[in-house]
């Protein structure tokens, strides 16, 4: 017995045509074929999806939560990126 744990995969499901794939959870599988079949059995038993992506978890890279404030700081003071920042006359419609 090799006693080797199957790798972990992250599962993304497209609920219907026109929507993006969304992360739904993870599972273990020996390879990509098994990962897709297991994802079908675990995450789409009630027609929740029309398309499945699986990505081995080790290939996902993420920012450090402890540095989150600094990372997102540049967007914090730019209210002029939102339409409500601009003052326009009330009689102006459809803009």
């Amino acid at each position: 017995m090799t006693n080797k744990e199957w790798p972990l995969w992250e599962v993304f499901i497209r609920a219907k045509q026109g929507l993006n794939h969304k992360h739904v959870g993870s599972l273990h599988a020996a390879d990509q074929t098994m990962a897709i079949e297991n994802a079908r059995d675990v995450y789409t038993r009630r027609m929740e999806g029309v398309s499945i992506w699986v990505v081995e978890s080790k290939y996902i890279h993420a920012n450090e939560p402890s540095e989150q404030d600094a990372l997102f700081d540049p967007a914090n003071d730019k209210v002029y990126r939102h339409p409500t920042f601009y003052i326009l006359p009330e009689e102006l419609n459809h803009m």
Partner: protein
Amino acid sequence: MEINLEEQFQAKIEQEIKIEPRDWMPEKYRKTLLRQISQHAHSEIVGMLPEGNWITRAPNLRRKVALLAKVQDEAGHGLYLYSAAETLGMSRDQMLEELHTGKAKYSSIFNYPTLTWADMGAIGWLVDGAAIMNQVPLCRTSYGPYARAMVRVCKEESFHQRQGYEIMLTLCKGSEAQKAMAQDALNRWWWPSIMMFGPNDDNSPNSAQSMKWKIKRFSNDELRQKFIDVTVSQTEILGLTIPDKDLKWNESRGHYDFGTINWEEFNNVVAGKGPCNKERLNARVKAWENGAWVRDAATAYAEKRANKKNNSTEAA
């Protein structure tokens, strides 16, 4: 500037900001969650066994497909929960090892035998009913991956209780013998079901901390009372009698009063002395050991394919 991580953490909890896997958390929060989620996952997996007993003996095809689907859901629920627990830093194999060696617990309800078909009804109605009562507030638990897993579980679980109640209803509308079988199942499953909510609040030392961390939202006794209150009228519709002579409506409390729970029995089953503890664990260990060659073969096949792919890329 000194930053108190623990205070920051508690402030997030108070503001209902979910904790995610890579966020800082107190070690005890991690351990409490890991124990609770893995125990929950084990319960789903071991919970397949009492019902698996009746799949091949379901009275008709409609009942059989429903029971199969329910048991398959439970495997899925175990998987969602194992995945949530893995985000706290324990491997799947280690969790299974703790189950198989008896270090980790699972819900003691699954250590009772399923003697008749009516037990499938009583389990769906009462055991899943009690589980739902526990699980719905967990959809708002403070740890993100656990809360998300519970949302999926609760969505799928509601059919489980309805299929169980339908089995009971059909038996109760049937012959005298069938109705007696339903009553017998209620008699055997009632007390273990209300024990599922765990010890009384006075004897539940970890509860206060779990409430403060918003892992739990309601106490054991609150949930138990809620379950009893809703179950009484469901029992009346069936025309059955709950096996508790002290059960009666208390106008001033606005709740049903009920008899004393046999905590000695509960503690015995938790300690491994229930009717089926050995049988359940043996079945899990056997399944794991007998499945070893399948896991190994799949690993070997995946490696072979990966090598082949690498070689052909090099050649090109």
